[in-house]
């Protein structure tokens, strides 16, 4: 029995990658939910909207404070249990069988992301110099226009590195989806290893795969940071087109 099979590490990468679309789907949609809901929560906290603000604080605290595994478990297996008792007592016939497991995983991951992302976004928004907002107000711009044209473009620059971090964390977090029978990259690796028991090699394969994905994302974020940032040198006046910044 070979102690460590390097060739196997690379041979196993293609079969493991058959689950790549699942990991990507989980990551992409959960990230989107995280950003959108995170922005909403951040705005609620910043604008101190009554009732919603307290709910937001509670939500962020609970969702950040409990492990994703527990959140997944409790919703995927717990809600049907509650419905089962409800059915038994009231003779109803509710169940969640129509909802695919991957949707549960995506929502759980997305909500979890939103709790973390909302704090990142909130800090970034509040870092935007308030004088500019006053100037925009005196021009007569509406709150939404100010948010979109003044605050967010500048907040994005501040938030981008942290949001990139958050996304990279999420990619690893998607491996928890196996708890609800969603076969992602890590699950696929473990299934493969269940046949030949070369778990060590499989985990090496997974490490390589996840690292490559992370590197791709790091570079994507680098490009984004550059795109959103204010250039160091002003463009020459000879240019007719007005460039730079985000209008």
């Amino acid at each position: 029995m070979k102690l460590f099979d390097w060739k196997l590490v690379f041979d196993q990468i293609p079969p493991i990658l058959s689950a790549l679309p699942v990991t990507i789907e989980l990551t992409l949609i959960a990230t989107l939910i995280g950003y959108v809901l995170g922005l909403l929560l951040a705005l609620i906290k910043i604008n101190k909207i009554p009732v919603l603000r307290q709910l937001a604080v509670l939500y962020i605290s609970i969702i950040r404070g409990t492990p994703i595994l527990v959140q997944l478990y409790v919703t995927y297996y717990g809600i049907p249990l509650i419905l089962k008792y409800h059915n038994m007592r009231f003779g109803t016939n509710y169940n969640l069988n129509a909802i695919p497991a991957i949707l549960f995983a995506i929502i759980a991951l997305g909500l979890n992301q939103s709790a973390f992302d909302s704090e990142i976004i909130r800090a970034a928004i509040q870092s935007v110099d308030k004088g500019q907002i006053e100037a925009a107000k005196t021009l007569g711009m509406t709150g939404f226009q100010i948010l979109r044209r003044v605050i967010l473009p500048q907040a994005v620059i501040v938030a981008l590195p942290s949001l990139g971090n958050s996304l990279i964390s999420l990619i690893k977090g998607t491996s928890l989806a196996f708890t609800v029978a969603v076969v992602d990259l890590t699950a696929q690796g473990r299934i493969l290893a269940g046949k030949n028991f070369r778990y060590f090699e499989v985990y090496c394969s997974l490490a390589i795969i996840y690292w490559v994905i992370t590197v791709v994302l790091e570079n994507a974020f680098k490009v984004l940071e550059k795109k959103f940032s204010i250039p160091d040198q002003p463009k020459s006046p000879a240019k007719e087109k007005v460039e730079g910044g985000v209008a």
Partner: protein
Amino acid sequence: MKKKLLSIFALALVFTLLAGTLTGCGNDVSKASAAGADAAPRKIVAATGGGPRPLVYTDDDGNITGHNTELLRAVFEKLPQYELEIVRVDGVSSIITGVNSGVYQLGFNNLAKNEEREKLVHYTDPIMVNEYLVVFRKDITADPDKDLSQFAGLTYVGGAGNDKTTVIEDYNEEHPDQQIKIEYSSADIVSQLTDVESGRYDIMLIDAPMYNAYYSKEYPLELNTYSLKGRTSTKYTFFVVAYGDDQLYEDINKALAEVIADGTSTKLCQEFLFGEFSPTIADK
């Protein structure tokens, strides 16, 4: 005004999420089985952890197979009123929890019966004759006729929620001054066996058919074993279904008896376990 707009938006989002989860409800599954042969086959989602080989595993083409899996398929071949779908989940705890809450209709992973699990899920008739072997290093002396207290102070390795670990946990509860140290591990069986051989841990428990038929042959290690007596529930392994699903329970047991009677079970045991481990009808 901006605040009002935001709060409306947020409440709308909350309601949509709630509504979205509830619309998935009301899927009337029981109607199908009640209507009988005329209705479409009832879908049975069977959950497994996807291991260990040779009882459950995935072959090179990505198909789930193994002794338990093929036996399950043979059983459902005799039940055209059901449609079997197999899903893989990350472990036994998810299987038991899932069957109990109704997310899955059946669970299989060479499951042994114990008190705690029996409270949650309904065990079918036996699918395989089982017994546990105590596996230990060659340089430990152990007497097969003595009980587990001869290992007091030594370290056991095994999975959490695993019935074999439950055996040790139960023993520890009954023998508070002769405890065996438990190291919980989610590593695969071969890694655990290797660790016992190297001395990192001292003992572990393993299914006899698996070990004798497969592991001892594929991974020759310097280990000793003897058969663990005394726990009748480890004599067999089973499928599990949810309590209250009586029609399914009866149908499975009936088909299982046929599969054993017509020799299919014996054939599968030979194919995967290189021996005969089918339960006899009288064992029920």
